[in-house]
């Protein structure tokens, strides 16, 4: 068969399959007319279509499911109804009561925490207790081999989302559905249960027109586990997680702002759903969730009356009152809302039926998932601990004024002195400084190479402990003098309240510390020096110890089970012995939609104790900004006691709080405020020798990031991608005149530009459809050379071909004249960063393997190169050849940081010679090769070019009095 024939047969087949078997023959008569071959083909396919469609390939290889006959308690699994990333739904039989039910099994990892499981069960019971016709009835809750499951009534019908896919809903029906939903919500709200994730995916319309609210409280469970931003609230246990993408559009403004939200958030969501039912359009929908959230906060949805004519004005008012930005101005209860809608159903609806044309499309009923069976509701345990506290509005003062990086603030116990780390000396490393908070010249306390970081005061203010680049932990008098090494390995020391001991940790920070046993260990040592004693050796990962005011307990970030991420939290442990207590800080942060800026999933920063004893002060990200928040916390029970409250709201990243209480009752918190910028840097290098001839020089300036640099062979110009907000274009810069020119100005985001060997052209990819273009390097029309090819990574030395990788990691070479493309490598491994040796006889590339990425070299030939012919050179991420082809440069993690390395190659065989050697290291706090968006490197003339991230910032202070 030819592709055209199949396409024709396929369309006829698809149409025929939508018909009843008895109608198909007549259909084929007309569809195939005289084409007998086509008809035969379609008929043959139709003959096996029932078998093919009943189960064939329906269960993904990735989803291992329960087999029919499996018994879960009193229920026997009959078959799979549907599956998705968040679990499977089965039809099952209740053997005791002889009825059909639906069972939803959630992935086990959602609930490996006994605490959460217990609360999950409470929720299920609360929902079951509702016993309301508009709320899905939950019969039972249990766990099966560690996976929580729910048994609910079996429904037949469609979700409201499925109905909406077919267009807007007639006004009369909208009112009818609306009344049912509002009544169900009212019943739940009366019991103190808030849904918090109401959306069309969570509303089910049965075949006989009843509406059921699903998934009460499920949002809570999943959000707590997976939240990295607000949209996570919507990643609930739908059988189809893809459906729920972007349902950030139903959040209330207070949820978007991560403020306390109550049942009135459900009323807002309800308003958005009403709007959508009436208009067929989402009330708030923008290309990205950030924009959608902004629209929720700031914009009114397009007027309904412009979309739906002759809408009863009263209904219009109901929708708008639900969608009020301020919860106080919305309906205050779902029962009021139900009454308002009921009133409409008596009067306005009949008129609406006359005036609003209703859709009568019937086709595709079968396609709407046939019988969508849904289980899933859980009750909501979600009653808020309401925080009566007023918002905190601190006074902000800037304490340092440096152009580089000044960070890691520590306030002395009396709040008068500030210690911090800064590279203001211009020597290229961070040193510890001390200054008066009220002003005055800073005093430099440390000297010498390597970053010194993270100072902290002893309780009497006489001593500062700090980290050093040699991994050691040092003590220093605040009067100055020589630093004394306390321990040879340690970070983040904190003095005990009596000043006699210090707690610290060794090893890594970040998620690796918690996921790989032994990567982070916590110790206590006497301040006079003694053998350090490990605290909580039973925790595979423990870090950031902070003393509780009683001097007997330590708060720390830990994970008692490295195989699980669910158990990561802030814990409190006695210093001596006894059980550790889980604080619930992580969950409180996640519930408020807060995450850490760096690690995304979890807050990974040492908290400061609120001076008033009201909680912990932590850095958390909400939307695009990272600010300080206060999590209410009991210093006796070691548990969180409420919702996080915002302390600061700057646009930069605000982290590293240090807090003290002043004698007049004023709370004072110093914190670092910084931003990061990406620029192209050049390193003067004798490229064939791998010899660095000077220090790295910043080649691009400005607020927009510059990434993915390539340099012309003569070294006179660079080309790079500029990441100005909202666009990502290719620019060139003449390094002698400094003139920058944009080479592209189209809509798509550009990727990885490369100069042709003679410098006259630039090849680049456009990300949206991975098409490759060539443009004159002085500017001009861009020529499409390959549609959907992927990224282009180099040119052949003669400039006639380019090489690159397809979007799924296959290396290709493209003839630029004929546009013919062929595979370079015979492999199914993931390939990246191909580049030709200067003579074109060889090429290098990165191949992903189970143990990481390695650079290989292979000989250029007409045939795809098999893996057996590859020469392994070095591990790492980006590669560039020296001009003589006898040295390969790489960005590699081999010393624990992302740095530039090189390895010599035998000129003839290209086999590596000797060990890799370091070219450029970036281990400090200010500059990082690992932060940039890309990791490409280029060589030209006498320079290595790459992009590097730079972090700059200063220290600020927030002060407030508790009300």
């Amino acid at each position: 068969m030819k592709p055209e024939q199949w396409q024709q047969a396929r369309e006829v087949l698809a149409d025929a399959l939508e018909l009843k078997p008895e109608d198909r023959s007549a259909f084929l008569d007309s569809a195939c007319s005289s084409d007998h071959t086509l008809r035969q083909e379609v008929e043959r396919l139709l003959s096996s279509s029932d078998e093919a469609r009943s189960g064939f390939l329906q269960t993904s290889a990735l989803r291992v499911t329960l087999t029919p006959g499996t018994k879960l308690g009193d229920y026997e699994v009959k078959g799979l109804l549907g599956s998705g990333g968040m679990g499977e739904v089965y039809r099952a039989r209740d053997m005791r009561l002889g009825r059909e039910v639906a069972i939803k099994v959630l992935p086990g990892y959602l609930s490996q925490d006994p605490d959460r499981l217990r609360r999950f069960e409470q929720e299920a019971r609360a929902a079951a207790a509702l016993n309301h016709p508009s709320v899905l009835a939950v019969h039972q809750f249990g766990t099966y081999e560690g996976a929580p499951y729910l048994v609910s009534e079996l429904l037949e019908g469609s979700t409201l989302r499925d109905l909406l896919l077919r267009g807007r809903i007639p006004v009369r029906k909208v009112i009818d559905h609306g009344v049912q939903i509002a009544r169900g919500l009212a019943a739940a709200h009366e019991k103190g249960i808030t849904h918090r994730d109401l959306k069309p995916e969570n509303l089910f319309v049965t075949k006989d027109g009843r509406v059921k609210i699903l998934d009460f409280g499920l949002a809570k469970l999943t959000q707590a586990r997976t939240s990295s931003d607000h949209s996570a609230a919507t990643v609930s246990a739908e059988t189809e997680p893809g459906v729920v993408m972007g349902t950030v559009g139903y959040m209330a403004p207070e949820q978007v702002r991560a403020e306390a939200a109550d049942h009135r958030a459900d009323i807002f969501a309800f308003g958005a759903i009403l709007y959508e039912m009436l208009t067929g359009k989402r009330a708030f929908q923008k290309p990205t969730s950030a924009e959608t959230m902004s629209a929720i906060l700031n914009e009114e949805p397009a007027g309904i009356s412009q979309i739906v004519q002759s809408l009863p004005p009263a209904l219009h008012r109901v929708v708008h009152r639900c969608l009020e930005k301020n919860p106080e101005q919305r309906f205050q209860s779902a029962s009021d809302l139900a009454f308002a809608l009921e009133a409409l159903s008596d009067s306005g609806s009949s008129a609406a039926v006359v005036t609003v044309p209703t859709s009568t499309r019937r086709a595709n009923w079968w396609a709407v998932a046939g019988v969508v069976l849904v289980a899933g509701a859980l009750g909501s345990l979600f009653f808020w601990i309401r925080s009566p506290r007023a918002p905190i509005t601190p006074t902000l003062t800037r304490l340092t004024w440096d152009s580089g990086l000044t960070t890691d603030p520590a306030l002395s116990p009396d709040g008068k002195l500030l210690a911090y780390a800064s590279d203001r000396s211009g020597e290229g490393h961070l040193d510890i400084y001390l200054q008066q908070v009220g002003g005055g010249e800073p005093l430099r306390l440390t000297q010498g190479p390597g970053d010194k970081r993270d100072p902290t005061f002893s309780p009497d203010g006489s001593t500062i402990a700090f980290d050093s680049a040699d991994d050691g932990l040092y003590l220093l008098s605040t009067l100055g003098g020589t630093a004394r090494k306390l321990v040879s390995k340690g970070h983040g020391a904190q003095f005990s309240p009596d000043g006699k001991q210090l707690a610290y940790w060794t090893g890594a920070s970040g998620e690796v510390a918690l996921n790989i046993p032994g990567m982070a260990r916590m110790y206590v040592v006497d301040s006079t020096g003694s053998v350090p004693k490990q605290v909580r050796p039973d925790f595979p990962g423990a870090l950031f110890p902070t003393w509780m005011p009683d001097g007997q307990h330590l708060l720390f970030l830990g994970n008692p089970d490295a195989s699980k991420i669910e158990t990561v939290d802030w814990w409190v442990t006695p210093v001596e012995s006894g059980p550790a207590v889980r604080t619930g800080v992580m969950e409180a942060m996640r519930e408020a939609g807060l995450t850490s800026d760096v690690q995304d999933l979890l807050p990974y920063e040492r908290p400061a104790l609120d001076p008033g004893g009201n909680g912990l002060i932590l850095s958390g990200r909400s939307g695009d900004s990272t600010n300080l928040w206060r999590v209410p916390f009991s210093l006796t029970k070691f548990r969180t006691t409420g919702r996080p409250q915002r302390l600061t709201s700057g646009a930069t990243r605000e982290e590293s709080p240090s807090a003290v209480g002043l004698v007049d009752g004023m709370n004072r918190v110093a914190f670092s405020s910084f931003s990061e910028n990406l620029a192209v840097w050049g390193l003067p290098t004798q490229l064939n020798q791998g010899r660095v001839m000077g220090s790295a020089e910043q080649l691009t300036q400005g607020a927009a990031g510059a990434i993915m640099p390539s340099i012309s062979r003569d070294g006179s110009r660079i080309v790079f991608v500029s990441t100005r907000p909202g666009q990502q274009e290719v620019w060139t810069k003449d390094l002698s005149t400094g003139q920058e020119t944009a080479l592209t100005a189209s809509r798509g985001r550009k990727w990885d530009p490369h100069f042709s060997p003679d410098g006259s052209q630039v090849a680049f990819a456009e990300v949206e459809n991975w098409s490759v273009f060539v443009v004159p390097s002085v500017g001009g029309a861009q020529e499409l050379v390959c549609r959907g090819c992927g990224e282009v990574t180099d040119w052949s030395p003669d400039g006639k071909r380019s090489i690159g990788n397809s979007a799924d990691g296959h290396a290709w070479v493209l003839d630029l004249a004929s546009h013919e493309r062929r595979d370079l490598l015979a492999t199914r491994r993931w390939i990246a960063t191909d580049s030709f040796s200067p003579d074109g006889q060889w090429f290098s590339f990165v191949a992903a393997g189970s143990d990481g990425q390695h650079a290989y070299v292979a000989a250029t030939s007409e045939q795809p190169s098999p893996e057996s012919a590859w020469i392994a050179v070095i591990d790492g991420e980006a590669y560039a050849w020296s001009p003589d082809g006898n040295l390969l440069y790489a960005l590699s993690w081999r010393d624990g940081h992302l740095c530039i390395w090189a390895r010599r190659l035998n000129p003839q065989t290209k086999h590596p010679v000797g060990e890799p050697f370091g070219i450029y290291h970036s281990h400090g706090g200010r500059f990082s090769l690992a932060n940039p968006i890309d990791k490409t490197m280029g060589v030209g003339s006498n320079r290595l070019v790459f992009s590097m991230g730079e972090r700059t910032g200063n220290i600020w202070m927030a002060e407030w009095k508790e009300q």
Partner: protein
Amino acid sequence: MPGTTSQPVSQLLAQWRAGDEESLRRLVPLVYKELRRLAHYYLRRERPDHTLQTTALVHEAYLCLMKEPPSGLENRAHFFGVCANLMREILVQYARRRNAAKRDGGYRLTLDVADALPKGRNLDLIALDDALQELAKLDPQQSRIVELRFFGGLSIEETSHVLGISTATVKRHWTTARVWLYDEISRSHGDET
């Protein structure tokens, strides 16, 4: 400490979402390992419920990615495409290897996948792989849809997001592709089980 193996999935995903394209490339080998483990369970036909735990990593990766990475659709397609492709490769490799070992006895490895085939018949992975290659010649996108759905575990909606086509198109192509594959496998391999 090579960066690739020491960086956990969620961190790589976070970096990737922050726009760090390379972290995806470091992520793939990790996911690959997990997929290999899944394939192992899948083929050994161990008690399936146990794998609810082992799928956590892949689920987590999928979940994270479904939440709109700022770098857009093409990245999702990229990642899921790779996963689906890897899963296919791993399973078929296993199957071929096992076949080679058992060739003398005329044994052909099949899978007893619940619901994979009606009437308890087994799914021949190698035949499926061959048929998919044939389908790719007729319509690469349809072959891709099957790969994403069956080997990648994506739903109709997810597949539509990843490929940037409507759910209606995915459903239509998915249905006809299955009919075609079923027919193709039955015809080329008869009813052997």
